[in-house]
């Protein structure tokens, strides 16, 4: 059984390793204002983080991760390039699995560098890779940027693209929207009737809501436009499904994507980004020929990542959560910086899980 001292000791060693790479050691308050986090992550965060109240400051949250406070701190200076490392406890409610820890140490490494995007991606991956060297772990990688490029390249209306992009992280809703846009599910009767009505408001109650009549009318107009939009073709759908279904080593994925890009030229830029990242990974000593790439990786619970994504998992203890996870989150910085984005990529590693894996050897 690992002790808290062992975990803290390992955390310190990991942080020192990241500091050697140039990471400035930083800290963050345990108590974070809830508003920022709630606005970013929505209601789901309440199920995952401890929300409590302060008599004067209102709702506050026990730090569920370091990313947001570190980005906020970085935005006080915007100095670039910047590298940060930290180590400390994070707190997560576990509503469904009592065996998962609700308080654990995370050691992180974050790189803010707009000059060399591919290099920064590779640097973070390599840093984590080195920290877990020799352990029986497998890694998986993905690229949310490739998916957004593919969706943005579909021959359909901007409204439909926006709806799909918004639900990229909710695979079920994404699929049902895509099915409708592809004409695979019929338009609901309610909607057909609404669009055919001379006065859509006939018989309805008086307006009582902050969502005003003009907003309702705007949506009806949007539905009218949508009804006139031709269905997304089967070919394009197949290309999108092919990208989402990719599960191969990086070289095989690169070759598949170059084929797909012939029919879906909108992904060409994303494919080049992936190629540059692959080169950068190789120059950092990563065995890219064996590296796994999954088209749908990062779609279920990594909403703030929007580019490179990756995770490391135990091959002997499948019951353990990922030992390390990371990715690029430029869009998050745009939201926190009121529109001013900084290219950012980072990862966290859990020393408690590292020790658990080592213990089983």
């Amino acid at each position, binding site marked *: 059984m690992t002790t808290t001292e062992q975990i803290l000791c390992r955390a310190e060693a990991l942080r020192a390793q990241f500091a050697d790479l140039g990471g400035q050691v930083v800290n963050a308050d345990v108590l974070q204002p809830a508003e920022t986090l709630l606005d970013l992550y929505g209601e789901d965060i309440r199920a995952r983080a401890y929300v409590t109240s302060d008599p004067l400051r209102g709702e506050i949250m026990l730090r569920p991760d370091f990313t947001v406070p570190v980005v906020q701190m970085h935005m006080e200076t915007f100095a670039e390039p910047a590298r940060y490392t930290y180590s400390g406890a994070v707190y997560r409610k576990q509503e469904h699995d009592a065996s998962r820890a609700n308080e654990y140490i995370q050691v992180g490494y974050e790189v803010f560098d707009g000059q060399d995007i591919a290099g920064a991606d590779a640097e973070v991956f390599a840093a984590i890779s080195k920290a877990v060297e020799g352990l029986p772990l497998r890694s998986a990688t993905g690229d949310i940027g490739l998916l957004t490029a593919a969706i943005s390249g579909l021959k359909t209306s901007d409204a439909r693209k926006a709806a799909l992009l918004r639900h990229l992280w909710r695979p079920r809703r994404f699929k049902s929207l895509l099915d409708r846009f592809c004409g695979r599910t019929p338009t609901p009767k309610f909607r057909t009737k609404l669009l055919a009505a001379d006065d859509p408001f006939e018989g309805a109650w008086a307006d009582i*809501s902050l969502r005003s009549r003009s907003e309702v009318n705007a*949506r009806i107009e*949007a539905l009218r436009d949508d009804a006139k939009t031709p269905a997304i073709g089967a070919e394009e759908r197949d290309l999108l499904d092919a990208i989402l279904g990719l599960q191969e080593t990086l070289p095989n994925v690169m070759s598949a994507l170059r084929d797909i890009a012939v029919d879906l030229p909108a992904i060409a830029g994303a494919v080049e980004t992936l190629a540059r990242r692959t080169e950068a990974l190789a120059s950092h000593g990563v065995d890219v020929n064996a590296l796994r790439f999954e088209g749908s990786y990062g779609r279920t619970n990594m909403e703030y990542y929007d580019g490179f994504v990756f995770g490391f998992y135990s091959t002997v203890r499948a019951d353990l959560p990922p030992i390390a996870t990371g990715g690029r989150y430029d869009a998050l910085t745009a939201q926190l910086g009121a529109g001013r984005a900084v290219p950012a990529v980072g990862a966290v590693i859990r020393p408690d899980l590292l020790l658990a894996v080592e213990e089983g050897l």
Partner: protein
Amino acid sequence: MTLKLGVPSKGRLMEKTFDWFGKRGVTLRKSGSDREYAGAVDGIDGVELVLLSASEIPRELAAGRIHLGVTGSDLVRERLANWDSQVVELAPMGFGGADLIIAVPDCWVDVDTLEDLDAAAAAFRSAHGFRLRIATKYHRSVREFLKAEGVADYQLVDSQGATEGTVKNETAEAIADITSTGETLRANGLRILSDGLIHASQATLFRGRRRDWTDGQRVTLKELQSVLGI
């Protein structure tokens, strides 16, 4: 050790529970004066009646302070995380029916389904700068439902009563609440989404999933189940 049976301490829920057991040969009654919260059980040995608030029954069952309990299935789902790992449904009792639903203003003629609600929420957030508010006291049930259904850009605001009025008062844009006839909803200009049923609730007899029951308690439960025919 007796088997403790928790029953709602007042109102129609208590009366109907007494009737339900009575019809099946087990008499539950309040002992002493009408105001006293003590009870007695006839027709079976080893069962003790505990009268308490229906909303506390899920917690008491999970903690093992009572072994059996009658309460709404909605309350169990709302109050207990992973409810089915903590309690077991022994018998739905056929009364106390009410639906936990999502309702929107009737004047939102463009919104009929969760897909519409989600689209409206996205537009609302960009127009107003905050997430569309849904008033409820059933936070866990609503959040889990909307997560499973892939609805985004909403927030839950707490409302412990008169929830139907929050839309008109502009403290919420939609509600999630219990309704049996829908009368109050209509009177407040609200309409249920066609796929907005979160849970059809009814009074249900539950047992706790504690492993520390004595052999005597297990035997008593078997006897009770055979008397009740469940």
